């Protein structure tokens, strides 16, 4: 392989300058690909130890609820996105009782493993702590941290509406790619209710320090979007950000 050609790798993580064996991949490049795919596959199928995660949340001093979707296992989760968008009735009732018993909530933080338990295990707690700290310092009334395994983004509508929160925020393990199997996304919805579409949500993706977005920048973006959503009483495509470019890391 020509040295200048190999040097192009400085500009991209893409699998360039791989060389060749005949017209096929060299063995090393082949094996690297197989390993990356194996990691991504394992990330998809890895179950989430939600009890252990809840213990960490409580140890950090936050209120925490474990909720459930009707999804039976990972295989059903992959085939039935509709089931990942709703709570079982018992969970919904718990939230409704809770909503009657407590003061009004500005924002409810929700965490689900989504398509990558690895992402939630690795980045979930530090991201949550950064978000909660910034929410509190901005005076938001934050609801209980709601955990639910095998959820989809729209689960935040069911949870948010049951709790009567003004804004629902859900942290989701993103679809693992070969280069990154541990990326988190956050979706924010103003006035969560069942039937909202993705056009009504704002998204912050690729949270995955050090390569991707840092916890601090993600939290800052989220708090900014939350403030704007409540001030303008909307979220989604109409909530364009004027501030966000200032928050991009230098040299990005």
């Amino acid at each position, binding site marked *: 392989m020509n040295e*200048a050609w190999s040097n192009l790798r400085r500009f*991209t993580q893409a699998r360039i300058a791989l060389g060749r064996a005949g017209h096929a991949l060299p063995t090393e490049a082949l094996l690297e690909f197989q390993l990356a795919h194996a990691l991504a596959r394992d990330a998809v199928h890895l179950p989430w130890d939600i009890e252990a995660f809840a213990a960490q949340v409580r140890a950090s001093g936050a209120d925490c609820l474990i909720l459930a979707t009707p999804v039976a296992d990972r295989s059903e989760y992959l085939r039935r996105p509709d089931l990942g968008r709703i709570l079982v009735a018992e969970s919904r009732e718990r939230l409704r009782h809770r909503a009657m018993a407590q003061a009004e909530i500005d924002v409810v933080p929700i965490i689900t493993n989504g398509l990558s338990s690895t992402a939630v295990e690795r980045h979930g707690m530090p991201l949550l702590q950064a978000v909660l700290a910034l929410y509190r310092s901005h005076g938001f009334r934050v609801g209980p941290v709601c955990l639910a395994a095998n959820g989809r983004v729209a689960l935040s509508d069911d949870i948010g509406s049951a709790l009567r929160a003004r804004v629902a925020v859900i942290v989701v393990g993103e679809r693992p790619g070969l280069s990154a199997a541990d990326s988190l996304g956050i979706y924010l919805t103003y006035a969560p209710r069942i039937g909202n579409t993705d056009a009504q949500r704002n998204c912050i993706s690729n949270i995955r320090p050090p390569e991707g977005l840092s916890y601090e920048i993600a939290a800052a973006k989220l708090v900014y979007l939350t403030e704007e959503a409540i001030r303008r009483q909307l979220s989604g495509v109409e909530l364009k950000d004027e501030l966000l470019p200032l928050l991009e890391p230098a040299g990005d």
Partner: protein
Amino acid sequence: MAYTSTLFGRRYTFADLKTLLAKASPLRSADELAGLAAESEEERAVAQRVLADVPLRRFLEEPLIPPEDDEVSRLIFETHDPAAFSVIASLTVGEFREWLLSDLTRDTDIAGIRSGLTPEMAAAVSKLMRNQDLIAAAKRCTVITRFRNTLGLPGRLSTRLQPNHPTDAPKGIAASILDGLLYGNGDAVIGINPATDSPANVDTLLHLLDRIIGEHGIPTQSCVLAHVTTTLELMRRGAPVDLVFQSIAGTEAANRSFGLNLALLREARDMALSLKRGTVGDNVMYFETGQGSALSANAHHGIDAQTCEARAYAVAREFQPLLVNTVVGFIGPEYLYDGKQIIRAGLEDHFCGKLLGLPMGCDVCYTNHAEADQNDMDNLITLLAVAGCTYFMGVPGADDIMLAYQSTSFHDALYLRRVLGLRPAPEFEAWLDHMGIFDGRNALNRGHPKLLGAVRALAGEAP
């Protein structure tokens, strides 16, 4: 109208044509998710028998979506050519399968009925066909298109060079482009999926592509796969747009969810034609499709995923595209669960598209939550290449670092050239030979191609 059959003393009833089509569809998770799939293998097999006896004419009498409710249906009926249809007007779906495979049918006969076929007829016959039928019949359909080179000639296989980058960094994209060109890729199009659709960003990428193509005199075309409205706006501002891209679907409602309608596509095509940037032809549109898109927009009208997909081809052919690409495994396992379903869908889409007269390529791909791997992609790309597929994607190492899925690589195309003797578009092949990238015998040159100068220049720059 209901369609019925009695088998083993049990009476089967299919309420209407769209129900019959759905129940006759080979199993896929999209139809299960939509609640349209056959409830048993037996019901599916029975539905296929019933469908085989349906006259092709029936598809003109029973629209799956009433034309008054859906502009795609209107397009299908308004553009239907009774004279072309007359050749096959007396056939049932089952007889049509045999006609497509018959020794007595000439390949030119198949081309001759294109404008008389509705997408639903193509979808219906595909449901009765085995994978080898889909390959054999597609192989008989030649569709040639032109912009700066000639695509779709028999014995040729082209590639879209897909140099995506998660932040659209121009040098990162340029690095992937040079890499792809050095492996002989990029004659179908050099096409970037932008990470952000902002006009300023897309404009930067269009100029980058225009500069690279111009600098090296590459007989190919560029495309930045932005929304059609973004591309329209940039054409108004004078940006160097070769091809107009848009994702399309098979119902008006699904297209609306994509933010488009037929009038918008017409406007974009007219403007692209007025730029006169093609040198050997004026096919200026690039469309992408995929089974499940109408369902994911909740706009499928109770029609199965594969039939909805075929209806998207009616939209495509109205605008004489240079390229159509079914992105077969992209959405995920809730639509196509595993390698088997992805392979089947890829063969169906290629067959239906070619039969309807489209320059079909396939993004042979999967996501990491599907039950599939690169071996499934090897299988599908080989089957489609045998079937005469117009082009595949060339992604560095098959790993798209922006879209987080796996497609096919520069190397995969080289593999097909070696095992099947398929050559790039003639203009591009001549360029590869001239640049010392190919050796004049459809294989990579062992020496030092001229393009390494550009590699050295880029490598010397600061990141």
